[in-house]
């Protein structure tokens, strides 16, 4: 495949954490053409978009708006461009985030982002098993009850539970992964920190991008 036609994946850099391991994770999974960019124009031309992120909901929403990447993400997802949100990049899909106040989210997956319930150790740190309420190409070839690495204190509560493609238990059953429409995905865990299983998932996303490019 010539470079001109090879599908390209843009990892969006909006100053919310280190993105090197996400990029390297894709490389190790055999996915080519993955770049890190903070340019809406560059991201707009990509065949797939990845929104990672670690940190506070409010800061993330602010940075996305300031950089013009907010509109870009909404437009591309609406146009059917494959999308993968990771951790905070999943929580931001909610209508509203309830971390240190009440903040507007991207609204791509309706619902709220709330704190994990009291009674368990917060943050939820470690490897947790994920079960599949329904099948999704994102988990192709990954056994149900596989473990992924989580680090978070908040979780996305979709208003439409049918978007949930992966669920986990931690004090409550919560959405570990969602799929909206055919190609918008998001995971609460960190595939780039989930060893071979996580790299497999990144490879699946790369394949989805390729199929739709």
């Amino acid at each position: 495949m010539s470079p001109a036609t090879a599908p390209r994946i843009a990892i969006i850099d909006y100053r919310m954490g280190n993105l090197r391991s996400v990029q390297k994770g894709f490389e190790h999974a055999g996915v080519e053409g993955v770049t890190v960019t903070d340019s809406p124009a560059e991201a707009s031309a990509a065949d797939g978009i990845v929104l990672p992120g670690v940190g506070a909901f409010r800061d993330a929403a602010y940075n996305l708006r300031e950089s013009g990447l907010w509109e870009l993400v909404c437009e591309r997802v609406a146009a059917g461009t494959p999308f993968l949100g990771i951790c905070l990049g999943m929580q931001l899909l909610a209508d509203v985030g309830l971390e240190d106040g009440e903040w507007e989210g991207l609204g791509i997956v309706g619902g709220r982002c709330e704190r994990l319930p009291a009674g368990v150790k917060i943050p939820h740190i470690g490897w947790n098993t994920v079960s599949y309420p329904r099948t999704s190409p994102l988990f192709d070839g990954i056994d149900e009850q596989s473990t992924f690495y989580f680090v978070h204190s908040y979780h996305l509560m979709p208003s439409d539970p049918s978007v949930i493609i992966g669920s986990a238990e931690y004090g409550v059953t919560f959405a570990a992964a969602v799929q909206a429409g055919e190609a918008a995905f998001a995971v609460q865990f960190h595939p780039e920190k989930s060893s071979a299983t996580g790299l497999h998932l990144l490879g699946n996303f790369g394949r989805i991008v390729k199929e739709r490019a």
Partner: protein
Amino acid sequence: MLTKRVIPCLDCHEGRVVKGVNFVDLVDAGDPVELAAFYDAEGADELVFLDITASHEERPSMLDVAARTSEEVFIPYTVGGGMRSAADIRAMLSAGADKISLNSAAVRDPELITHTSRIYGSQCIVVAIDARRVAGSVERWEVFINGGRINTGLDAVEWARRAADLGAGEVLLTSMDRDGTNEGFDLPLTRAVTREVTIPVIASGGAGELEHFAEVVIEADADAVLAASTLHFGRFRVRDIKAHMAGHGIPIRLVEVAEEARSPVTSEWRVR
């Protein structure tokens, strides 16, 4: 279900993994990144890199280790040793570390825990506590800093609670009495701390038999277990520890690993 974690610890000196006692007779155990990739393949759940010299001069080599690890290893890793300021912590996180372990610096400047956990999130601030039982006492331990050389007089259990209140996301608890003894983790110490805090506690120091790893989880409620030399020098493999823990009904992330695996630990140990 959340699983209990098995965490290999890599003590580093001048950018190499070493094993020694009280900083003397350091034995070279290889390249940290190579060893880290090996432990990822072996099923380790996380890694800890500790700069045992903990000096400012060493930080460039630890930044290099952190950066190289982020490109080769796809499990979370913590870096500790020698970081004293928010700027030090920022540099290490930017290099790719998932978490920072603070020991002496946290005792000297507790505000550092609050400040950095607010900026980067409590999940990436681990407070490491080196604790030694007070002679003659049954259930009292004191916090030592500077690689175990200075007794702060602080009560270890109280310090753990305070660190958690200040914003630490995890406690890495090392029993100085048990470290290097192979007699097993300090169960009363670990239990005292896990009862006191609501953040995860990583038990460290003393593991010598497979039984010890299951014991500290079941009897002292540890969230994770740390092991160093028993792994590097081939006493056990990560999968042996995990299989043993799973055999005791402990939730564990079991992964398929190669039957035969050759540790990259330097075969000819060099005594410095």
